[in-house]
Each structure stands twice: as C-alpha cells, then as structure tokens.
C-alpha cells in the first residue's frame, strides 16, 4: 500500500461498501429530513420575525445542499477528491454569477435605462 493521493470517481466513497458507508447515508437522510422539516416549519409558522424568514429559508436550503453533497455524493476535502471539488466550486461560481447577476441587473433595469 502506498499512500499517494489517488483520484476517486464522484459518488464513490473512500471506505468502499460496508457499514461506514451505510452510516453516511443514514446520517445524510437524518440531517436532510431535519433541515427539510425546519424549512417547512419556518415557512408556515407565525412565531418568527417575518422579514427574516426568506433569509432563513435560503440558509437552510444551502445547508441541506451541503448535506446532500457530503453524505449522499461523498464529496469530501480528501486529496483523492480534489478534481470533483474543484468542478463543484466552478459550478457554484457560475450558478452564483448567473443568479445574483440576473437579479442585480433586472432589479436596476429601469434606473439604468437611457432616458
């Protein structure tokens, strides 16, 4: 066994088939269910400060996407996973640019138009 970093296919876990991988899925479904239930509670309750609800939902959604990436897709910070993580990082960059850029431009469209 040499310990040089090797590449790993996205979706494959380091441990290979076995108990630890099953545990990852169980932790994943538990956390995801918790975050989903919290999201639906946050959206329907009247206990919380209304203007903050949308931000809270966004945070919960991003957290749940992270849970899915780590526990279902086995994207980790390990050296054998660098390529997969860099691809995700690039994807996140483009998604952020498209969404934030579109909203920013469209929200200021009237003000920026020629008279």
């Amino acid at each position, binding site marked *: 066994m*040499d310990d*040089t970093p*090797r*590449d*790993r*296919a*996205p*979706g*494959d876990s380091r441990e*290979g*088939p076995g108990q630890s*991988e*099953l545990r990852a*899925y169980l932790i*994943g*479904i538990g956390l*995801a*269910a918790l975050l*989903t239930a919290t*999201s*639906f509670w*946050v*959206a*329907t309750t009247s206990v919380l400060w*209304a203007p903050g*609800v*949308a931000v809270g*939902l*966004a945070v*919960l*959604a991003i957290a*749940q*996407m992270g849970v*899915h*990436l780590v526990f*279902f*897709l086995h994207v980790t910070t390990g050296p054998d996973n660098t*390529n*997969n993580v860099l*691809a*995700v990082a*690039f*994807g996140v960059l*483009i*998604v952020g640019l*498209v*969404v934030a*850029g*579109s*909203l920013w431009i*469209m929200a200021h469209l009237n003000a920026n138009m020629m008279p």
Partner: protein
Amino acid sequence: MTTIAAIAPGRHGLPPDKRIVVGYGFWTFLLSDMVMFSALFATYAVLTRATAGGPGGAQLFHLTPVAIETGCLLLSSFTCGLMTLAVNGGNRTGTWLGGAVTFALGAAFLAMEIREFAAMLTLGATPQRSAFLSGFFTLVGCHGTHVGIGLLWLAVMMAQVAGKGFRPSVQRRLLCFSLFWHALDIIWVALFSIVYLMGSIDG
C-alpha cells in the same frame, strides 16, 4: 463479485481508471445541468411578481402535497444510496429492491406533481396566463422532466442488471444514475425552498 474498481485505480503515470473518467465526465455534465437550472431559477426569480393580474404563488401553492413530494424524493435519494451500496457489494436482490423502491418513490413524486399541474391548469393558471406562470412551469416542469427521464433510465438499468449482470460497464452506468438522482434531489431542495416556501410567505 468484484469489488468496485475505484478502490484500486491506476498508479501515477498510468491513465486513470475508466470508472473515474466516466464518473468525472458525468459529474461535469451534471454541473452544467445545474448551471442551466440556475438560469431558469434566475428567470423565475425575476418574474415572480409579474403576475399580470393573475394568480400568484400564495394563492396557487399548497404546501401539504409539496411536503409529501419532498419526502418522496428525499427518501428515494436515500434508497438510491442503498441501491448503490448493494451494487458495490455485488448484491443483486438488494439492487433490485433498492431500484424498485427508488422507482416507486420517484413515480409517486411525479404523479403528485402532474396532479398539481393539472389542478392549476383547470383553475386557468396556465403558462400563457402570466410571465410568473411561464417561469414557474418552465422551472418546475424542467425538473419534473428530469425526474421522468431518471425513472426511464432506472428501468433500463434494472433490465441491464437482469440481462448483463454487474459487468463494469453496467456498474459505471449505475454510478452515473445515482449521481443523476442525487443531483435531482439537490435541485429539488432549491426548488421547494425558493418556489414553494418563499412563494407562500409573501402573499
């Protein structure tokens, strides 16, 4: 049965294992798919208030069916993971069981979504009614189409497991399918949060 090839990929200087090349290629496709969805999300977000006097999200969305749909898709993502474990362990019965449950949950999700669409259409909330509804049906319909394609793919994979067994090419396709299915669930997380939950609060 052979263990998964990814545990013992090629050493330095050798081309990487085909499972890694195929998986990474499909991973890149999925990320480009997410970029496409981000454009649809951006379109929807820009158009949410453009209801043209028609019904808005708060009038149209019912959170109970959406919660059940979410549960179905989340559970199917989990059972898809269990199916992957069975595939990697060379367990044929487990693969069929996991595939069948995943298929059933995905089909239940799709059936509920189609029913929701049908109910909206009978209310006159068609894609032609307003820019908001055009954006809604494009975004949610695109996700639903992906789920439908995923179901078809899963059925084909089950037939391949039956006919060809766990040969490496079938294992690679099953890996790609599981990536696809988990990615659809990630998109659904953004979808139920932004479209349904945020849509139901500002009314």
